[in-house]
């Protein structure tokens, strides 16, 4: 199964916390690009991760050529055409930057958007987005305003929690359902990405059935006493009873990859990172990106992308 996201990276502050260095990444078969990336470092406001750091919110870069992107040649060789950087903050302090890289637009139907509101306004609009070949859907999306509590971005904003919906052509909550159906988009994931008193951001990942965002997406949340993580929702294109079995387990703080995310607030990549064994056609899940959703210094949820 091919997925919409081709590369995922985690960039972390170095020991002086003044630059970003390579933490970990999932590159699939793109070994040359991986090699080009592992030695990179980014200062504050430098390159895609650095820009997200200085901006304080997610950044979308639709074109690498003649931009501030530092790995343009390697990215072009790897067929990567767009990057989205998601900074993870706790208060004013950066914990990490997660970078998603996409490409091969004609083969993949999907979109990644960053929604935000104007200060003191109670509706979100698309600040920027990557839509691949979905020009009509992009045009509609850029004109829409989502009130707080409405639409997937609006619900994520209101609740402060990630929202995952499938078959969105039939979902009333999804304001753009007719346009999504026309574009072949079937699934949407909305993730609130921290906010100040005045400004909020929500990232949305939209994808078609044939090219999902990831093989499986899970949302884990702390239980009511706050002692364990439980899986609130798990979704994949095809049912996965193995994943469902593992989604019944509970996770203590500090235990395993998800427990580490909870303990540290840092995103984590786990699983088989060995590109020699990579085979996108295998149905088994063998790598995971787990991203924390943090609000006022506390973990609200973890979104995991399984590849």
């Amino acid at each position: 199964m091919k997925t919409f996201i081709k590369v995922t990276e985690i960039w972390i502050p170095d020991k002086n916390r003044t630059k970003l260095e390579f933490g970990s990444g999932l590159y699939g078969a793109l070994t040359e690009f991986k090699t080009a990336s592992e030695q990179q470092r980014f200062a504050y406001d430098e390159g895609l991760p650095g820009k997200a750091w200085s901006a304080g919110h997610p950044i979308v870069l639709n074109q690498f050529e003649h931009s501030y992107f530092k790995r343009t040649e390697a990215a072009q060789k790897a067929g990567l055409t767009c990057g989205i950087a998601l900074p993870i903050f706790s208060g004013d302090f950066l914990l990490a930057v997660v970078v998603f890289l996409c490409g091969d637009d004609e083969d993949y139907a999907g979109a990644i958007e960053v929604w935000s509101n104007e200060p003191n306004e109670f509706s979100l609009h698309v600040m920027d987005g990557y839509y691949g070949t979905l020009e009509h859907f992009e045009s509609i999306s850029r004109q829409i305003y989502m009130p707080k509590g409405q639409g997937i971005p609006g619900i994520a904003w209101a609740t402060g929690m990630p929202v995952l919906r499938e078959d969105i052509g039939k979902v009333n909550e999804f304001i753009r359902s007719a346009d999504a159906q026309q574009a072949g988009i079937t699934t949407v994931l909305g993730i609130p990405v921290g906010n100040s008193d005045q400004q909020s951001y929500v990232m949305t990942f939209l994808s078609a059935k044939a090219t999902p965002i990831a093989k499986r997406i899970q949302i884990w949340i702390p239980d009511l006493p706050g002692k364990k993580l439980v899986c609130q929702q798990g979704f994949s294109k095809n049912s996965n009873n193995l994943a469902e079995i593992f989604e019944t387990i509970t996770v203590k703080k500090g235990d395993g990859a998800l427990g580490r995310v909870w303990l540290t607030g840092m995103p984590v990549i786990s699983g088989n990172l060995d590109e020699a064994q990579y085979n996108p056609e295998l149905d088994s899940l063998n790598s995971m990106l787990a991203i924390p959703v943090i609000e006022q210094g506390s973990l609200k949820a973890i979104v995991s992308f399984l590849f």
Partner: protein
Amino acid sequence: MLNVLLVEIDITDNLLENALSIIGFEVLKTQYDALFLTLVKETRPDILIFNLDTPPENLIHDLHILNLQFPLPVVIFSSDSRNETINKVMKAEVSALIIDGLTGHRINSVIQVAVARFKQQQVLKEALEEARHQLEDRKQIDRAKAILIKTQNFSEDEAYHTLRKLAMDRNITLGEMARNVIAMADLLK
């Protein structure tokens, strides 16, 4: 008609080549050099026959590689009777090593025995590989069961039946399903 790649020390010596041709083999004669493995892969003979005083160290190394990549019956006629040489050659899984025994009337039977021995060795090798594979599968299944017992509070029976059902639902072997379970558990480590 079987194809023989004949490796001679003295390329001008036609005795063995003629004897093989009379028997009915198709013979390609060469000397041993650095391109030996390439020649074997390109010509794809049915049998390799060497007529040497002493098998050189490089040849022993090449024979090991050949066994892995392109196994075939190998017969060596040699005059070196030292134990050390014999041991090295046998470790290279040569089908027949004839010391000072190159006589016209024996060649055909030597080759036939070598081919038969080679075939039997291959059958044993395959059986060994299959047994190793099954043992590895068994270990992985036990490991996957242990994971299910620990994470799901299953009994051993429940763990086994869950694993079996998961495998059947996906139309894969129990061993492959066990590896999927282990991979899933590793993701959460």
